[in-house]
């Protein structure tokens, strides 16, 4: 957690709650602190309250409870247009009746910036996103990717310190999206802007962000840098939501510091690393990443755990092979193997042994 950064916190959510209808809390007890210059991504399933958080920060929704601070000042009662926050909307929201240049000069005009200054800034912002020659066009005359760049330039042209982006790449095709991900992160870092980015594409979240906040059910489930999020999920939701994940259900038999013994539902007992389990007898969900499972058990270290498995399905995916197995009574166990020269190609029906290191096997809440 970034609580130790609170001294130089730039954006702060303090115990923020939000309800639209007075019956359901859409955001429940949100606490978040962002230092200046950070690129933070909000990731989560649809309806988890990401946009709502962003809208509260931008000032279009008011928090039902709690406080939002910007640079140490509470902004609960500051209207949106005085917050000075740049925003990129999911469908870009470029004004259709203005040209690109007019769109960009709009925030400068309302700030009463002089004409020559304005033109220089618009030109600089357009050049920054390589859209210099499109100033005279209307938004409808641009492709999706071009509109996206313009929207970005417009959000940046008045030099805000904080930029919010709500699924800005949602409408683009894969290739363009990857390219724009790269450009956005570069720009944000070059300009030193603090960015809150919303997406429900986890690859996007992992590749772009300094830290990712995983949302579910109106709460932040985990707030961590991408690698920690992937490798050390703190609860079963994060483990299942981020990346591919194998789960086995069991009960804690024994717990001692960094290790625990878990009895799986089919009777097998395995070692695991306790994460958010504490009591013996508690139900637990074991999480193992597919790429940490080995079919060549000889290659594992001495205290590896092995278990029998039956091959159900073998899927060729080019760079990797994806194999579905029946393990400990569950037949959705996936393993991934690299398509290397000597890799074994398993056949459905084959009986094999698989294994993993106990440290890769995390016992989470069920």
């Amino acid at each position, binding site marked *: 957690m970034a609580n130790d950064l609170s001294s130089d916190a730039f954006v702060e959510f303090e115990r923020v709650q939000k309800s639209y209808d007075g019956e359901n809390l859409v955001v429940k007890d949100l606490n978040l602190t962002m230092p200046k210059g950070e690129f933070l991504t909000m990731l989560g399933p649809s309806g988890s309250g990401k946009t709502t958080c962003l809208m509260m920060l*931008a*000032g*279009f929704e008011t928090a039902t409870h709690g406080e939002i601070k910007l640079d140490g000042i509470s902004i609960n009662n500051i*209207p*949106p*247009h*005085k*917050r*000075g*926050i*740049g*925003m990129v*909307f*999911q*469908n870009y*929201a470029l*004004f*259709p*009746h203005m040209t690109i240049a007019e769109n960009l000069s*709009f*925030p400068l005009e*309302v*700030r009463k910036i002089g004409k020559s200054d304005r033109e220089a800034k618009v030109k600089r912002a357009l050049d920054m996103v390589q859209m210099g020659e499109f100033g005279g066009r209307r938004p409808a005359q641009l492709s999706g990717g071009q509109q996206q760049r313009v929207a970005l330039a*417009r*959000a940046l042209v*008045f030099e805000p310190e904080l930029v919010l982006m709500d699924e800005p790449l949602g409408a683009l095709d894969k290739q363009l999206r990857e390219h724009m991900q790269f450009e956005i992160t570069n720009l944000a870092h070059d300009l030193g802007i603090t960015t809150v980015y919303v997406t429900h594409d986890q690859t996007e979240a992992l590749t772009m962000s300094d830290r990712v906040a995983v949302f579910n059910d109106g709460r932040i489930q985990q707030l961590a840098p991408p690698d920690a999020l992937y490798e050390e999920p703190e609860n079963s939701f994060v483990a299942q939501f981020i990346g591919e994940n194998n789960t086995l259900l069991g009960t804690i038999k024994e717990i001692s510091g960094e290790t625990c013994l878990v009895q799986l539902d089919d009777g097998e007992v395995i070692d695991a690393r306790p994460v958010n389990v504490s009591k013996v007898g508690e139900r637990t969900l074991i999480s193992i990443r597919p790429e940490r499972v080995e079919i060549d058990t000889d290659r594992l270290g001495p205290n590896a755990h092995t278990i029998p498995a039956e091959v159900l399905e073998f899927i060729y995916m080019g760079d990797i092979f994806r194999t579905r197995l029946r393990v400990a009574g569950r037949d959705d166990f996936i393993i991934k193997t690299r398509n290397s020269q000597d890799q074994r190609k398993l056949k459905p029906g084959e009986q094999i042994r698989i294994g993993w290191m106990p440290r890769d096997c995390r016992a989470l809440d069920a």
Partner: protein
Amino acid sequence: MSTASSGPTAADESAPVLAADGTPLKKSLRRALRAQKLRALGLIAPLLIFVLVAFIAPIGDMLFRSVENRIVSNTIPLTARVMDEWDGQSDEPPAPTFEALYYDLFLSAEARRHTRLGTRLNYEQTGLSSLFRSSGRGVDDIGETHVETIEDLDDRWEDGGFWHALMTGEGPRADDLLLDQRARLAALSSSSYNGDIGFEPGEQIADLLPTTAREYTAFALFTAIEEGDIVVEEEPWEAVYVALAQDLRSADLSGYQGPQADALRAAQEAVTALPPIDFRAGFAELDEGWISPDVWETINMYSPDYTTGYFLNAVDMQKTPDGAEFRPDNERLYGILFKRTMFMSLAITLSCVMLGYPVAWLLANLPMRSANLLMILVLLPFWTSLLVRTSAWKIMLQQQGVINDTLVWLGIVNDASRLVMINNQLGTIIAMTHILLPFMILPMYSVMSTIPQTYVRAAKSLGATNWTAFWRVYFPQSVPGIGAGSILVFILAIGYYITPEIVGGTTGTFISNRIAYHISSSLNWGLAAALGTILFAVVLILYWAYDRIVGIDNVKLG
């Protein structure tokens, strides 16, 4: 790519692109689309036919009446033809005009058509209606002595069979004469004059006595077809005797050997002994109006088949021998009415925009449930009769009405000086604004509901205040809705009839009320058509101007 048809390359761009079977692509595309088009046409055919038959054709006919003026040449064709040669400089047309007028008036009086012409010409000059009516009654007095002289000469002249034999004669038939007269009567009475009449004029007698043959043929047609009598049994009417008297004055009977040659020669002798018939004096005796230059000027001006008279009238002008000029100030009416219609429609449109815009905005931005309720309120007027709503306004606005009573009760207005809000322009504007408001709100709403909230949010996030965000971002995008609503309301307003009729009094009526008056009361359909055509043209011009300025494709009605 197949080897048979090489695809178009940059080199042979000019050559037509061929489809797989070798026909030009354009042609085969057209063929493929034709079936589709025919099917589409089939689907709209019922409506198209309905609209054509029940709407466009009658309206086209109606508009045509604004220039059509064949009533003069249909009713008094001989006169009109003779007057063609008149230069209009002298006070009166040349003498033969009066003779032609005699035959025309006689026949049209028999067919009871002369009063219609009188009514028509009365639009242009008052007094002509009664002139025609009284002259139609007295026209058979002209040439009385000659008629009596011929009749007294020989009993046979009063016998239908005698006349029939004379006019039939021997030898070839004068078919052209018969056809001409059929057409003359058909035009006069606007009904068909076909069919056998038991008489065919002879060519010999038609050459010898052309006027008599003409008038007798007309008489025969009228007798047989209009009255259903047998021509042989009927004594001709006076005009035939007059024609005979005129013909005999110059006819050379020396070589005539046909039927009744002896009677003809005797009649010629008797007629030439009398002084010639003075048609001009005869008409002057009937009515002094016939020797007034004004009357002839008017008849001459309106004798062509098409006239600009109705249109001139519709813009407060009139025809004079020196061209068109404005009527005197106290006779002008339509210019004021057109201006008033425009001005009031504009006022109504503006107040609809003012009142409708906020409502449309609410409709587009309120949560579903409240928006639906509001929508019902907006549509409510559609579910009550127009007449009921207008009458309700009458009750609300009149001096002893609800609003005045309330104001007096509140002490805002003195009982003695109650506000006049009805039977004037204010009343019409209030009532019509209310009635046309939904037509403004609905198009605005449909445009506004397509403007996502994110635009305003984006504007605010960029630093715009509520007002700037509205004015610079929301409003421009809602302009097509305002345009669509305004054009709809304005066009509806300038043609509105019922409401101004009921609450407009004399100062709050529209041009349409005048059109209705001419259609149903004064029966001056030509003027009504001219006014309607001008109104129609104004709408088209407005539409065109709007298209140039805003663009019709920006208009969304839903």
